[in-house]
């Protein structure tokens, strides 16, 4: 199932609705990259609220997406990691050290906006 990517001002919102197959994950990566290029987005929010399991491939790929978009000048925030998922991830040693995280979509947007604020002040 493809992940819908919505444009919200200077940001993109990718809201994962159901468990992802490996193909879906790769598709998501390609979609995000092309949309970032097309809309010249400044930030991306990946909402994983609906995921109650996150395997190592998914988390590695999400981290990969964050790294790639950063190279295109867009910051990625992962939002909505469930308590159980968070606990399982750190136990497996996947702690997203260099990726930004936030509680939910609202927090993620607020986080991106504060980061955007000073840099964008002149325009």
């Amino acid at each position, binding site marked *: 199932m493809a992940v819908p990517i919505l444009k919200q001002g200077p940001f993109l919102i990718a809201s994962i609705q159901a468990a992802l197959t490996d193909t879906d994950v790769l598709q998501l990566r390609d979609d995000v990259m092309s949309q970032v290029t097309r809309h010249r987005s400044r930030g991306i929010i990946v909402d994983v609220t609906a995921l109650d399991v996150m395997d190592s491939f998914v988390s590695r790929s999400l981290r990969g997406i964050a790294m790639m978009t950063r190279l295109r000048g867009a910051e990625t925030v*992962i*939002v909505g*990691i*469930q*308590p*159980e*998922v*968070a*606990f399982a*991830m*750190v*136990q497996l040693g996947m*702690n*997203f*050290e260099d990726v930004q*995280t*936030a*509680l*939910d979509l609202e*927090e*993620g947007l607020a*986080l991106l906006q504060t980061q955007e604020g000073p840099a964008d002040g002149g325009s």
Partner: protein
Amino acid sequence: MADPDTPDGAPAPDTSAASALLRELVAHLRQNRTVLREEWARRITEAQLLTALTPEEIFSEATSVYDNYVEVLETGSVEALQDYARNLSERIIPRGVETDEVLGIVLLLRDVLARSLFEKYQDDFNRVLDVYEPAANRIANTVAINFVQERERVIRQQQEAIRELSTPVLQVRERLLILPIIGVLDGQRARQLTEQLLRGIRTNRAKVVVIDITGVPTIDSTVANHLVQTVDASRLMGASVIITGLSPEIAQTLVTLGVELGKVNAVGDLQGGIEEAERILGYQVSLGSDSIEDSQLR
């Protein structure tokens, strides 16, 4: 499940004669119920057992136990006694009755009855003992086991309750949680604490969490790693963690153990931690002109 109450084999040599004798014994005990029961209650008081109960209570419990006892002798089935013993334990454990007291009264009853039987069957006492002893031992066994099991159940229940109580997650300000930890942290408690904290972060939409470990006497490497995991997991949920109250001893242990605490934000005491959290959240706390401290300063 193993049944702890099965008798240890050794069937009576002559079953029909034995059961006839048993019926006779039971009849004797029923006949002398009042005398023996009183004798038993007296011996209980004399031995200073069940001091937590009033004499009336002792007498009424003694009556029930006596009747149950004789019934088990008669039928050989301990099921009713088991229920009664469990029920009795439930009632008397909260009153502070100890295991040795319960065991003591059952053994006293055994002796009282044996003495009374001895008086009647002096010539043939060996045969009486053959019938009486296995049943009596089995009863003592059943009562003791049920009492201990009930106690253990109560202890487990209390442990559970203490654990639940021991990890409160409190909101002190909008989006600021504190988690005071008191007492020894073991692996299980650390895990439970993490789960409760993560749930708390979600329900309170917390951005900053202060974990105060002033009340934790020692920490080993497993627990320290668990704390680090808690910090990481909270970050995944968008909350940053401040650890406060690391005692000098614990700090020393952690460094000696080589626990990776570089990423952990630590502040000396709880007050400092809350101030730091307020700074992160953008709160500015100032003294009002009519505050107590202000007037004391003047």
